[in-house]
């Protein structure tokens, strides 16, 4: 059974990318409008606007006066004629378009990587239910390499806008940016190491993706199971490589935006997030293709199983999230707990909203066995889960880069559209490159007759 990306879908993806690009460009241009010269008045305008709407005239005046006093006293110690507050605000405003771009790029990349892990598990476990879905998974994993390269490229371009440990002089004793903790970690956290590791991770994942796809297609026309056996072996090897590199990737690409803070289960937590988003996307694309009359060998039981995974891994994610949160909250060690203080103080809505979307929604919506077979129900829950995990990535990156100056506006939505369009374009083009049934797989009969 063949699939070709339809013109409508291709046009839609391209339009998304163009609109996204406009949003991203707007974000950069807008943030460049804030410079050292005009930041003082722009902030004052913001402040004034607030005073007007929220306080009485007298209160506003009083506030402005005390604000002025502060500026005067700070002026002497701050360099470049800016107060610390203004300097920070300027940095945050300049960081935002980079951070927004990075969040969007990482979110779509992590979907593809999560699917790759899921796919490898199916092979390593010799699962009998899932081979009918293998071509869908292979389509999604085609985004691993381009998506990963984009994330690395943004990291390279953003430099210290995202990763404060890349700031000049941060490891030099006596420099004004010197930071003892970061200097102590510089054996791992340095620019060369970051990109060499990044390329090794990506290289390993892409190699596995390349060969497993190759063997999977070769198996279609083979008369023995040699290709399948090879796939089994490289999948088991890949999973070992993956679980180490995924963890290190999460320290490098996500956790290091807060270089003082660390959590030992962060790798697992990021893994749970990418795993559940990936499985959700498998379910959504499968249902989409089924609605086009393709994949008629996929039955309700396959959708049921995918929905069970969405349900189960959502709870697994919550378990990890909570394990991390509760220990840090309970022990209340200053250098650890600041991570959550920032989020609860400035990110109340995305932080708790994410919990509702990633835990309570899937828990209640997918608990009933029958609902896991209703396609539109799985799609609706999937949309909530994906939005929730976008917010999850948002909560990883934004507090460290823009602190309280966050908003889901043009730059963020632009990045989602840009990478979402690219993701759809690459994934659906890849789906059209091979038959949708991996017919040579020795478990195909079992998978086609799978019923629950």
């Amino acid at each position, binding site marked *: 059974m063949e699939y070709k990306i339809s013109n409508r879908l291709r046009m839609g993806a391209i339009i998304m990318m163009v609109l996204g690009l406009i949003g991203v460009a707007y974000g950069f241009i807008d943030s460049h409008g804030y410079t050292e010269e005009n930041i003082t008045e722009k902030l004052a305008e913001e402040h004034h606007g607030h005073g007007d709407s929220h306080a009485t005239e007298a209160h506003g005046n009083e506030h402005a006066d005390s604000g002025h006093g502060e500026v005067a006293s700070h002026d002497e110690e701050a360099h470049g004629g800016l107060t610390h507050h203004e300097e920070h605000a300027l940095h945050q405003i300049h960081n935002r378009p980079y951070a927004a771009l990075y969040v969007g790029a990482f979110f779509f990349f992590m979907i593809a990587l999560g699917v790759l892990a899921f796919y490898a598990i199916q092979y390593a476990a010799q699962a009998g239910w899932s081979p009918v879905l293998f071509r869908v998974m292979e389509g999604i994993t085609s985004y691993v390499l381009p998506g990963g390269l984009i994330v690395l490229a943004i990291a390279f371009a953003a430099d210290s806008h995202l990763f404060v440990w890349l700031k000049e002089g941060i490891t030099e004793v006596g420099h004004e940016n010197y930071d003892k903790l970061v200097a102590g970690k510089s054996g791992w956290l340095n620019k060369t190491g970051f990109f060499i590791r990044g390329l090794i991770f990506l290289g390993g994942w892409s190699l596995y993706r390349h060969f497993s796809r190759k063997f999977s297609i070769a198996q279609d026309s083979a008369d023995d199971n040699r290709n399948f056996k090879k796939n089994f072996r490289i999948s088991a090897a890949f999973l070992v490589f993956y679980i180490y590199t995924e963890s290190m990737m999460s320290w490098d690409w996500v956790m290091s935006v807060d270089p003082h803070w660390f959590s030992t289960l962060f790798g697992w937590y990021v893994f749970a997030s990418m795993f559940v988003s990936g499985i959700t996307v498998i379910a959504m694309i499968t249902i989409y293709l089924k609605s086009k009359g393709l994949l008629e060998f996929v039955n309700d039981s396959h959708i049921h199983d995918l929905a069970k995974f969405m349900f189960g891994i959502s709870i697994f994610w919550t378990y990890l999230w*909570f394990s991390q949160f509760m220990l840090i909250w*309970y022990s*209340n060690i200053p250098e650890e707990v600041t991570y959550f203080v920032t989020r609860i103080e400035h990110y109340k809505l995305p932080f708790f909203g994410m919990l509702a979307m990633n835990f309570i929604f899937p828990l209640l919506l997918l608990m*009933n066995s029958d609902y896991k077979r209703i396609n539109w129900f799985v799609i609706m829950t999937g949309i909530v889960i994906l939005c929730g995990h976008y917010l999850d990535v948002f909560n990883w990156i934004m507090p460290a880069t823009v602190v309280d100056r966050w908003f889901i506006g043009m730059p963020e939505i632009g990045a989602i559209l840009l990478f979402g369009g690219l993701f759809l374009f690459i994934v659906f083009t890849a789906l059209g490159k091979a038959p949708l049934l991996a017919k040579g797989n020795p478990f195909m009969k079992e998978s086609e007759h799978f019923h629950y």
Partner: protein
Amino acid sequence: MEASKVIHAIYTDDDVLMSAVKKVKAEKHHIEEIYTPFPVHGLDKAMGLAPTRIAITAFMYGCVGLTVAIVMMNFIMIKDWPQDIGGKPSFSYLENMPAFVPIMFELTVFFAAHLMVITFYLRSRMWPFKKAENPDPRTTDDHFLMEIAIHNNESELTSLLKETGAVEINIVDKDEDAH
């Protein structure tokens, strides 16, 4: 009470049993009961049994467990004897909530699991000291037994069941008072 006649067909394989059930149902006979040594996947659907409602009770028991945990921890840790552990705010349930989540979770699971098992036993009338209803002890080992009521169609049923691969067919007088 009037004694009724039932037919007992015995099978030695669960796949044969499944196809037999489908054939018997296709002939529009009502299957009273099937005794198996282990749960046979999909048998309930093939027999046309109504779907189980135990999942709904499990959900309700879970909600009860969650409520018990919340009320209990509120009483113990906040109201009755507020405890200061690690300088946490001790007069507010909500602010201490993360510490109670493991207890809330455990009691939810505890209530759901135990009450679900008890419900299952009661609903299946399996209270202590009850005499086994099992008509043939071999169904606890490696045999499967299908029980069909006879309404003046003994020979027809016998030949149908023979065809489906039953290894043994017995006609039994079933005394309703026995349960």
